[in-house]
């Protein structure tokens, strides 16, 4: 066989017309994904995108790979079934904050704790886009929407902290339009063997425009974001003059002058759960928002353990004819 030819990002786009609202953050994510696929040289026929329902979940239709647009909230469960049968496939789950954290919260929980080898991309726009703008489980208290005209009262769930509580071993974050940062995160997620959970802040231009502007807006980004890197001090700011310091007395994070107190800046350790918890909990404007790979710990992936746990690794080594006879039998002549 010939060596597979190198594909470009364009080659991963299907012939389907993309139908998100003009200006939707989903376009940028689609681009980042096709670029990542090209970069890693993904084989289209070994790549499967599985989604639930929502604007985000239309994703698979736009890729020239295998694609399964399932039902609301259940993509992680379908993806698990796929991986059990064929652990070789590179399986991506695309979901939204409603799909993944409202109706689908349970499947996400169990897929993460089992550590099924899938890359979960959760497009968080803090709103139900497809059903026309109701508040979602990540919407902030006070969100006015058709179903919460007086403002929502539900305390939002933090996608990252939820994943951590679920036992996720890989947790990362990116921003729709941050090509480089998002690309890096996608690549790391794909390379990880196990459940890789990626929260992508995505702008819904129609129902929740600029909800992340407090940290994504160009004018504030440098001071409102910290890009974490394993083994590196947690420094940020336009002039890289701000650092995150762990106050051992109060057991909390604080922003300090990184130039004045370089040794007091916490060094990121993606294997430490306390750091993950602290980073994931940070909220603007008091604290910067943590981006990049926040947590990564090795573990056995469920699908490989699954195969191994079956006596014959799922191979058929006996015939039914034999197995039926592994008991008392008698002959009638």
């Amino acid at each position: 066989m010939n060596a597979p030819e190198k594909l470009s990002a364009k080659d991963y786009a299907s012939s389907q017309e993309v139908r998100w609202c003009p200006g939707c953050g989903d376009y940028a994510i689609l681009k980042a994904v096709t670029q990542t696929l090209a970069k890693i040289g993904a084989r289209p026929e070994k790549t499967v995108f599985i989604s639930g329902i929502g604007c985000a979940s239309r994703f698979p239709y736009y890729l020239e790979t295998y694609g399964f647009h399932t039902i609301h909230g259940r993509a992680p469960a379908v993806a698990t079934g796929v991986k059990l049968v064929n652990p070789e496939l590179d399986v991506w789950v695309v979901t939204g904050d409603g799909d993944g954290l409202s109706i689908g919260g349970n499947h996400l929980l169990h897929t993460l704790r089992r550590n099924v080898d899938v890359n979960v991309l959760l497009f968080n726009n803090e709103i139900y886009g497809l059903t026309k703008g109701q508040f979602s489980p990540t919407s902030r208290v006070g969100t006015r929407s058709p179903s919460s005209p007086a403002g929502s009262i539900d305390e939002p769930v933090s996608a990252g902290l939820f994943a951590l509580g679920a036992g996720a071993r890989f947790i990362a974050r990116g921003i729709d339009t941050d090509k480089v940062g998002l690309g890096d995160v996608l690549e790391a997620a794909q390379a990880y063997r196990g459940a890789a959970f990626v929260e992508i802040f995505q702008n819904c231009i129609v129902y929740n425009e600029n909800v992340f502007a407090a940290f994504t807006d160009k004018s504030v980004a440098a001071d409102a974001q910290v890009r974490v890197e394993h083994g590196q001090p947690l420094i940020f700011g336009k002039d890289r003059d701000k650092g995150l310091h762990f106050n051992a007395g109060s057991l909390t994070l604080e922003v300090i002058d990184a130039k004045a107190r370089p040794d007091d800046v916490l060094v990121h350790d993606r294997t430490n759960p306390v750091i993950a918890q602290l980073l994931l909990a940070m909220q603007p404007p008091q604290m910067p928002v943590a981006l990049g790979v926040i947590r990564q710990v090795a573990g056995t992936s469920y699908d490989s353990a699954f195969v191994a746990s079956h006596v014959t690794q799922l191979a058929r080594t006996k015939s039914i004819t034999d197995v039926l006879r592994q008991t008392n039998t008698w002959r009638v002549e």
Partner: protein
Amino acid sequence: METTAIDMQANNEAIVIRLAGDSGDGVQLMGTQFVASTAAAGSDFATFPDYPAEIRAPAGTTFGVSAYQINLGAGPITTAGDAPQVLVAFNPAALKVSLPLIARNALIVVNTDTFSKRNLSKAGYDEDPLQSGELDRFQVVAIDLSRLTLEAVSEFGLSKSDAGRCKNFYALGVLLWMFGRDLETIERWVEQRFKKSDLLKAANLAALRAGNAYGETAELAAAVPQYRVATATFEPGEYRGIRGSDALAFGLAAAAELANRTLMFCSYPITPASPLLHRLAQLGELGVGVFQAEDEIAAVCAAIGASYAGAIGVTSSSGPGIALKTEAIGLAINAELPLVIVNSQRGGPSTGLPTKTEQSDLYQAVYGRNADAPIPVIAARQPGDCFDVAIEAVRIAVRHMTPVMLLSDGYLANAAEPWQMPNMADYAPITSTPYVRDDAAADGASAAFRRNPETLGRAWIVPGQADAMYRVGGLEKDIATGNISYDAENHAQMSQLRADKVDAVADFIPEQSVEVGGTSGRLAVVGWGSTYGSIFQAVRGRASRGVSHIHIRYLAPLPKNLGALLAQFDRVLIPEMNMGQLATLLRDKLGVDVESLTKVTGQPFMVTELEAAIDDVLAAIGAQHVGTQNERT
């Protein structure tokens, strides 16, 4: 109280025995061993265990009684029997709950050692029934079972509780004597079972032999007849005993073998579906994967994912769990993926009566989804039949690329019978519509939606296949490419295709046959599922009076000839363990006029109940007309 000798018939075409005791009394084990000896002796049999609803109820309570019923004799034995003629009661509670069930003049063996004041009151007896005269119409054999067992095993120095636990073998010894059985089969089994403990092996063997010897002695022989039970004429071949849920598990594995694919079984525990999960978890060597999901929705979705990836995806539950799966079944319909959904029905609605049997999920199976979402539905009728039905379900799913609902129930799941080993060479391989890549097509997607014009099954293309990548989902799809389509005409076509596909199954299934009686006559008794055995027995004696038994395996679509067949009968009676669901189906699909005979007590039909109902109908229509005779039994 004295043991009263009653004349009993010593030669039996068939006889029903019920063993009943506390969960700790080893009744189930005793039952299965008695059955092993029955098989060796050449009788046909059918068995049904009757577990308590509680996990482990306090000893001595009526709700803690565990029972095992065996019907044995000349074949065909098709039910576990109506009223037991022999009862072995290990304690007052077992006696109490069994009395209403047994035959008028049954023989009762009781363990008198347990009839203490405390136990009597736990069982709700104010007076000792052994003394009160309440048992006068029965033949009572009172045995100090506990004491005798302790004596029999005293030499081994077991703890008192271990020694006491041998009493089921003592009782088994007695029972084997009553039925003139030799001990060999059981002895071999005991040796095998306790091979790790010489002590327990010896003690149980001693108890077994002592019980047997007790029968031989004058003490018992004077009072009790030795039963001679007729043997059955089986077709020559190799046999084993089989429980419905095991046959179902083996059938699914066999189907995967016939399809040469992995069987991926994705489930969530629920009564009475769990035995299937447990059995399949032991069949790894057959290429069976078992995934216990977080809930029923995840289970069906994982099975769909497995099918999408090329395995035989199977999911299983009982009514409440199936309800949760219905949304996802729609996805499998839309995506045209094979999927087998096994429903082991139980009493409902809601949580209902989890440990009781019922066949009330037929509506759910046939009509129970949003939108026009037809799927094939087939039902198993007997424990061994579960094997073939499982193969059929997988075959239909793969051939037509559709979800298939397989209906079993709590009775079938736990009932057992002798079963002739299948010859796998008799079964055709299971195949799907082949993959054909049309190089002229713009993209590979359309290859997945090429359909066999006869089966309407599409090509089962799986990820990994180069150049045939396609996208599919729950939104209405273009009939040729699978892409999203909001087109009105396309939706009409797809709706028709989904209906036609299920109808197409009828071209591949056998015509409806008649189980007992002629192909025309005065009365067709039409059933489905686990009522088979009782209906068969009830009709058997009435075939000459123009009554036939028709039993439907394929519920959707119905066999093509069924309407014409039923039209040959003056009346149609439908006994069901529900409020009349098959009756609805037949009225809907065939427009026939039917009468329902419903039973919703969580219990199978008794043969006598059916006989009475049939006789009532016969009486009502008068004794004139007798249809063509064409006995098939």
